[in-house]
C-alpha cells in the first residue's frame, strides 16, 4: 500500500486516478471517516471491496459521486431526493434512490436501490469528477472493526492479507470524530398524485360532503357506513381511504369504529401496519381491521400479512394510503363477498375537508 499526502494536490489526483482506472482500491478521507474507493462499475474492483469488508450479509454499499448531474446517470432522482441533494449535499448524508442498474449489482439493496453520497471534500469531488464514474463509499474497516479516522487506525485494525488489497492511502491526516452518514430512503411513500377519475368504477354514484371539524368527519363516516351496513352479514366491507397526511383518515376510521360500537380507542396504525378491533353490534359480530400501507415498500405486502383472510363476510377493513394497493383491491372488488367503498378526503382549508365516497 502506497501512501500519498492529500496536500500534494494535483499530483495526488493523478496517482489516485491511475489506481482507480486499473481497478485498484484507494482509501480516501471524507467528512465522516476514511472510506474505501474502487470503480463502482468495475466488477473486479467491487469484489475486492467486498473481500476487504468481509462478511456483512446482504448489506448494500453506497457510492460517491461528484455532483447531482453524475448521480442522475446512475439513479432515478425523485422530488424528495432532489430536495435532499439541494439542501444537504455535499455533506454527511446518503440518499437512497432507485438504481438505473449501471453500477455493479451487489452494491444495490435487494429492492434495487442504491445509496449515493457526495463527500464534502473538494479534492475527493475533483477526483471523482475527473474519473467520470462513481466510486464505492464505505468505511475503510473490516465489518465489525473500528471505524478509521487516521492511517494508524487502518494499519492497526486491518489484517495483513486485507491490507494487500489496498493500492493507495490518500492521507488527509487525522479526521475529527463524526458519526457515519445518515441514510435516507427516498423511494418510500412517494406522494402519489390523486387525480380524480383515476379510479374506474362504472355506474356508481359519487357523493360529496363538507366537514368542518374532526367530529363532523367522524359523524360522516358513521353516516356513510350506515348506507352500506346492510351488506355486512353477507360481505366484507372495504373502505379505501385516500387523502394526504393530516387530512383525517384516522378520524374517519374512528367514526367507522363508533358505528360498530367499538369502545377501544382507534389509533393510528402507521407503525404496526395493521390494528384489529373485534366488534359486536346487535346480532352482528366480526373484526374491524385498520390498515396503513405508509411504511410498506409495496402494497402487495398486505397479501402476505393476511389481507385475503381478513375479507370474510362481517369484517370491515379500513385502509389508509390505498394508492399503493389499488390494483390488489380492484382485484378483490370482482369477488362477490367483498364490497369496496372508495373514500377521498381533500383538505380545503385548515379545518375544512371535502369527503367524497363512491362504490
Amino acid at each position: 500500500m502506497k501512501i500519498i499526502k492529500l496536500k500534494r494536490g494535483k499530483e495526488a489526483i493523478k496517482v489516485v486516478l491511475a489506481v482507480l482506472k486499473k481497478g485498484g482500491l484507494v482509501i480516501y478521507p471524507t467528512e465522516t471517516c476514511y472510506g474505501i474507493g474502487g470503480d463502482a462499475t468495475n466488477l473486479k474492483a467491487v469484489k475486492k471491496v467486498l473481500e476487504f469488508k468481509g462478511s456483512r450479509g446482504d448489506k448494500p454499499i453506497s457510492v460517491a459521486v461528484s455532483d447531482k448531474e453524475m448521480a442522475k446517470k446512475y439513479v432515478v432522482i425523485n422530488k424528495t431526493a432532489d430536495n435532499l441533494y439541494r439542501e444537504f449535499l455535499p455533506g454527511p448524508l446518503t440518499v437512497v434512490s432507485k438504481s438505473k442498474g449501471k453500477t455493479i449489482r451487489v452494491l444495490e439493496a435487494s429492492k434495487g436501490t442504491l445509496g449515493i453520497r457526495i463527500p464534502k471534500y473538494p479534492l475527493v469531488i475533483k477526483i471523482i469528477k475527473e474519473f467520470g464514474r462513481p466510486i464505492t463509499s464505505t468505511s475503510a474497516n473490516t465489518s465489525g472493526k473500528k471505524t478509521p479516522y487516521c492511517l494508524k487506525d487502518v494499519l492497526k485494525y486491518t489484517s495483513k492479507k486485507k491490507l494487500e488489497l489496498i493500492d493507495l492511502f490518500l492521507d488527509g491526516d487525522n479526521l475529527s470524530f463524526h458519526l457515519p452518514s445518515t441514510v435516507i430512503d427516498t423511494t418510500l411513500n412517494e406522494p402519489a398524485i390523486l387525480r380524480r377519475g383515476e379510479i374506474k368504477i362504472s355506474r356508481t354514484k359519487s357523493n360529496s360532503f363538507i366537514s368542518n371539524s374532526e367530529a363532523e368527519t367522524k359523524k360522516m363516516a358513521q353516516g356513510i357506513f350506515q348506507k352500506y351496513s346492510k351488506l355486512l352479514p353477507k360481505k366484507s366491507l372495504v373502505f379505501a381511504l385516500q387523502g394526504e397526511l393530516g387530512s383525517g383518515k384516522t378520524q374517519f376510521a374512528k367514526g367507522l369504529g363508533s358505528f360498530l360500537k367499538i369502545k377501544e380507542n382507534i389509533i393510528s396504525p402507521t407503525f404496526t401496519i395493521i390494528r384489529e378491533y373485534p366488534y359486536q353490534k346487535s346480532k352482528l359480530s366480526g373484526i374491524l381491521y385498520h390498515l396503513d400501507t405508509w411504511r410498506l415498500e409495496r402494497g402487495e405486502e398486505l397479501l402476505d400479512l393476511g389481507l385475503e383472510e381478513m375479507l370474510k363476510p362481517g369484517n370491515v377493513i379500513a385502509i389508509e394510503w390505498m394508492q399503493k394497493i389499488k390494483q390488489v383491491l380492484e382485484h378483490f372488488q370482482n369477488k362477490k363477498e367483498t364490497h369496496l367503498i372508495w373514500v377521498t378526503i381533500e383538505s380545503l382549508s385548515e379545518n375544512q375537508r371535502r369527503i367524497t365516497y363512491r362504490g
Partner: protein
Amino acid sequence: MKKHYLILSIDTSCDDTSVAVTNNDSVLSNVISSQVEFHKEYGGVIPNLAKRMHQQLIDLAIAEALKRAKTSFGKIDAIAVTIGPGLAPALEVGVAKAKELAQRFKKSLIGVNHMEGHLLSSFVRNSKGIGPFSKMKPRFPILGLLVSGGHTQLVLMMDFGKYQLLGETLDDAAGEAFDKVARMLDLGYPGGQIISELAKKGNPKYELPVPMIGSKDLNFSFSGLKTACLYKLQKLPKPWNKQFYCDFAASFEKAAIQALMIKLKRAIMIYQPKQIVLGGGVINNLPLRQASRKLARKYGLRVFIPYDKKLFTDNAAMIGVCAWHQAQRKDFFKKIDLLDRKPNLNFN
C-alpha cells in the same frame, strides 16, 4: 427458584426479529435482525417482505443468540415470547416458534407484554450485572414514560407485575409524528432521526400549538400537531434553505417534547412517584431526556434510562428480563397449546 435462571426470549412484535438469552436480569446476548450481519454467503438476499414476516430470520437469530451467549437449549430454563401488542401476523411467528421450542425441549413458557418489556428496560443489566438500578434499589411507585413509533404511554408501576395505565395517545404516537413531519419536509424515511439531527442546529422560532395543553387527563395526541405543521409549512414560502429546515425541526421538536412534559408533570403531581423510568425508541432524542431530567429534578426525582441504546428500541433482552420477573411470581403459561398472540394487549 434457581440462582441462575436462563431464559431464551423472542420478540417479533413488528419489524425486527429479536432473540436474546438472559441470566436473571442480565443480558448474555441480544440479537436484533436489522443490526446483525448473519454469516451467510453473499447473494443470499432476503427480500424485504420476508424480513417483516420473520420466518426466514427466526432460526438464524435463535442460533446466533445461543452462540453469543455461549450456551445451548439444554441449559435454558424457560422460553419467553412477546404476545402483544403488535402486528398480528408478525407476533404469530414468534409465538408459534416459542410454543414449538417449549414443547420440544420441555421448557416452561412465559408470555410477555411488549410494553411491559419497554417499561422494565431500565432494570436490564449487562453481563457483568451492572445497570441503572445496580447502585440504587427500585422505590415504588415508579412512573414510566414510554415513547416509541407505535406507542406513547404513561404507566404507574406499584411493583413488578402491578401496573396502572395512566394515559396514552388517542391518535398518533410521538415517534410517528417525527416521521410524518419529516415526510412533509420531504426528508425521506425514516425521517424522525434526521429531524432530531437538524433540530440541534435550529432555533425554535416557529410557533406551533402544544397538543392537549388544556386537557385535564393524562392522554396524548400528536395528530393535531402534525396537521398544524402541515398548514404552517403551506404558509411558509419556498424555497426553504438549510437553516429553515433546522429551525422548523427545532420548533416541532420543542412542541412535541413540551406535550410529553406537560403530561409527565401532571402525572408526577397526581401520583407522587419515587422514581421515573423512560423507555422506547424516541428516548434516543437527547433533548427529550434532558427535559425529563430537568422536570424530575424539580420534584427531587431521578430518571432512569436503559444502560444501552439497543434497549431503547424493540429488542428481546427486555422481554427476557420481564419474563424473569414473571417467573419469580410463577406467571408461566401452563397450557402451551393455548398461548395466542394478543395484538391489542395493554396494561390493566
